[in-house]
């Protein structure tokens, strides 16, 4: 019984995490999913990552 309750809590937490992650990603806030905070490529920061570089949409 205790096991079931704990499992239910863990499951709910995981579900919330996943749903939130998907929402953030779709909104473009989630980064690349490589596990870093908000920057799509933390360890690769030197290369490129922020919006200060002119973003030229190819199709507008």
């Amino acid at each position: 019984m205790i096991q079931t309750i704990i499992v239910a809590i863990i499951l709910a937490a995981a579900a919330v995490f996943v749903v939130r992650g998907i929402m953030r990603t779709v909104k473009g806030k989630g980064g690349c999913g490589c596990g870093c905070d908000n920057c799509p490529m933390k360890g690769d920061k030197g290369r490129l990552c922020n919006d200060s570089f002119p973003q030229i949409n190819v199709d507008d």
Partner: protein
Amino acid sequence: MLLSELQTGERGVVVRVAGHGAFRKRIIEMGFIKGVTVEAILNAPLNDPIKYRIMNFEVSLRRSDAEKVEIVSEKEAELEIVSHDDYRGIDADEQSAAQHIAAERGKTINVALVGNPNCGKTSIFNIAAHAHERVGNYSGVTVDEKVGTFEHNGYTFNLIDLPGTYSLSAYSPEELYVRKHIIEKNPDIILNVVDGSNLERNLYLTTQLIDMDITMVMALNMFDELKRSGDKLDIEQLSTLLGMPIVPTTGRNGDGIDKLFDTIIDVYEERDVKTRHIHVNHGRELERSIKRLRTELYEHGFSDSLSTRFLAIKLLENDKQLEQYTTERDPDGSVFKMRDQIADEFFRSSHHSIDDTEHVQKEHGGDHRAHQDIESAITDAKYAFIRGALAECYEKNEKSTLHAHTDRIDAIVTHRWLGYPVFLIFMFITFFCTFAIGQYPMDWIDALFGWLGELVNSNMTEGPLRSLLADGIIAGVGSVIVFLPNILILYLFISFMEDSGYMARAAFIMDKLMHKMGLHGKSFIPMIMGFGCNVPAIMATRTIEDRKSRLLTMLVIPMMSCSARIPVYVILVSAFFSKYAALVLTGLYLLGMIMAVLMAKLFSRFVVKGDSLPFVMELPPYRMPTAKAVLRHTWEKGKEYLKKMGTIILAASIIVWALSYFPTNADKKMQAENSYMAKIGKTIEPVMAPCGFDWQQSVSLLSGVFAKEVVASTMTVVYATSSEEAEELEDFEAEENGSRISQLIQQNMSPLSAASMLLFILLYMPCLSTIVAIKNESGKWKWALFTMAYTIGLAWVVSTVFFQLVSLIL
């Protein structure tokens, strides 16, 4: 705040005067010097110019000029003193408070690093700002700006690392970006980093910066290489000729960096004797043209934010962006009339033969030719100036063997035919080591997780929590975390290839191939970055100025096998093809690249139309990467990987476990077959059956949409909960044949189906983040959805054809 914001009756203290050259001088001559108190006498919203009292006399300043002066108002100072403990000791007297704060703020220096790609800007940035930014021995590594803040000798520096550029024309996004930064952000000092082993080309940018009439300090970087080459350079003399202090530095070990920032402080405080404004002499004819156009610009009131000399030169060079800037201020176009007239006259006077002129005019209408003519004359004149300057202070050691090894290596590595096999061999070695060396630590981690699983199984009572821990979390996360060593080794190799300069060669030999396939040569760098993670790769396409090429590159980047796919490859390969591991992995990566190129060809025919621009790839000399830089990069990757384990993979494992565990059923076999996971899997199984996949493989692939590593964890969890032998897994421990996961897979999958799955993983839809990145960068969901559709379609077709054909043969 800015002087223009100072309200009528308020007083403030000058912190600094931004801007440059004659304009700045004028303001300073009016008395707006650091530390001086100013009072606004009349500043009404529509009032221009604004009236100020300074040192007891009245001056009026245009609003646009007043915006260039940073001040601390007494009101502001008062507030600050109340809220800040630091200022407690200071006299409550408003005036001295403002003085004090102005003096403090005046000790902040904004410095922008400007230089050619690969001259060592980021290395200097890292040393100065104690930062860990990525250096790399190929151009295009820094594309955005980064700011580092640090203290030096009582001053605070805001150091900005800008992307590398060869010039300040408007041809590439980098060039425009750097120019915009200099003009709009008005850094106090431009730190021009120059590669001392390649002076002539690097100084070209310097001459353009001089045209802009900004305060500069030069870091003569790669000074170690300059010394080793045996070239002789009279730095004092060059510094006098260019009118700016020059400090020799070595960005690799930090030599000279302290001196560099001391010098910057001197220049900022206007104590430096070397600093003076010079004009790069373009020769009599051109100088006259520039002067005429400048006068015209003056008359039209172009004298505030941009040096008129720079503007005149750029207009003569037909700079599109500055033409637009001019049009906005001079709507009737008299500046352009003058410009065209000057260009035309210049053209005539330089083509004395009348025949020639008429001939050209007939062909091109003259105009275009005339403009091109003056543009190249300006470039030539700049190079002539540089050569003239270098002739006086530089002596090249003709017998230098500095980059001799580069030439020797390149003779093979960029050879027309040899280049390709060499590239393949490098890839093969990389994967061989990734797999072979990675095997040992992988086994240890695997054993650790096996032991953890047993611990849970033997110490907990039977129930859902035990199953969640053992079959869900430990099995799921464990199955992916074991690949940490492989990932680290792969990144070690990639870092080394990038930092040494080999990657630039790989791009170079691919350039020709790419071009034939309708891709831009510059596409290769983002594509290579795709081996790490597709998302930054897609963002890196911003460096490609041509829209069509950029879109094409974005669409095919998902074919580049990102590191998240490695765990899945290694699981399958070590279960079935461990003898040929490196070969299979190399083959997969190659296939991905070939597919990318083929798709690009196809899309450029039917989907994205337009034409592409040529591109010159620079080949930097080979440099031994510093161990520190390589290891740090590798470590960063390792950290990210571990973090991903604790987040996405963990959550996915839990959910996948739940879907395979519920609804519960007393009969183990029945439970597995009736779980939600099985239901989902069996729904899509018919579609996937032609590729040779069972329902377990199908759901695993489906779950990979969130992150490709999840395929590996799902597969493990699903097989662990559904396989009849799951309970007896521990018995296999002793056998010599691979890890526990390998055995689990071997029992449930045929080699052929595994091979087909490898192909599918390589090609099918990229993860959610990549899809979103494509949407953001292309501006439309259309392209993101298109990528999803075509990758899934392609993966299905390739796997099916492969599976069916091989089944027939066997």
